[in-house]
């Protein structure tokens, strides 16, 4: 196990679909160094991928001139992740997806990203940046929690 405390890892990825995998790979490497079990690393990878996809698609509206900022901060017993974009943020978290409504065409088949994020990490909050420019999602995944 490597002590990464106080040494955040930062990266900026282009607002282009597929680049979320760069953030996924980096986060997986950091989590492995911290000693996270493989199942929790898989949870983290999906949560970060979905956060980056939201930032790329909805926050930065696929604008190639904008980047998504990802910061990975190791703490004693957790990894904190922020994913920052230039969008206005969300006014409220959408309801839990309903598979029956989706299957009957009463609900968009998409729209599961935030639900997956909330389900796979220990803390998730969506924050509008104080200066009115940009927003971020903050995720926390704990080292001592076993995957379901």
């Amino acid at each position, binding site marked *: 196990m490597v002590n990464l405390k106080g040494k955040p890892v930062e990266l900026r990825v282009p607002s*282009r*679909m*597929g*680049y*979320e*995998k*760069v953030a996924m790979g980096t986060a997986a490497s950091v989590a492995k160094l911290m000693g996270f079990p493989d*199942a929790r690393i*898989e*949870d983290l990878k*999906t949560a970060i*991928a*979905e956060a980056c*996809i939201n930032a790329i698609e909805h926050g930065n509206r696929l604008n190639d001139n904008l980047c998504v900022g990802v910061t990975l901060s190791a703490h004693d017993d957790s990894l904190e992740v922020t994913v920052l974009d230039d969008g206005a943020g969300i006014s409220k978290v959408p309801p839990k*997806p*309903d*598979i*029956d409504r*989706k*299957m009957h*065409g009463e609900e*968009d*088949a*998409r*729209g*599961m*990203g935030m*639900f*997956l994020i909330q*389900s796979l990490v220990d803390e998730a909050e969506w924050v509008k940046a104080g200066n009115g420019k940009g927003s971020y999602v903050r995720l926390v995944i704990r080292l001592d929690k076993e*995957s*379901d």
Partner: protein
Amino acid sequence: MQTETKANIDQIADGNGGRVTVLRFSGDISSGSHDALLGTYTTVSKSQPVLLDFSKVEYINSSGIALVIQMLMEANKNGQKIAAFGLTPHFQKVFTMVGITKYASLYQDEAAAKASI
């Protein structure tokens, strides 16, 4: 950066004199997978069951899961049975979380999926 989704169609015997279609996917299942998933599904017979083989899929995100749901919607309309196999334990968990298992059972391998159909 996205890995292209590839889809191959196999026909296998169901062991009871019938046939089963197997859609074998590889690469990523994401927003760019529309043609590989839904396009491929439109070409298969609607009169026999379908197995979805994810054993060579490297990455699945929520946009890709939405395409799987759209495929299940079409199958549901056709009264066609679908089962899936080859998902990692993580993606079995994710598929279960979003409720897909209500409309398509998940199996560890092809033999178990085929036996269920």
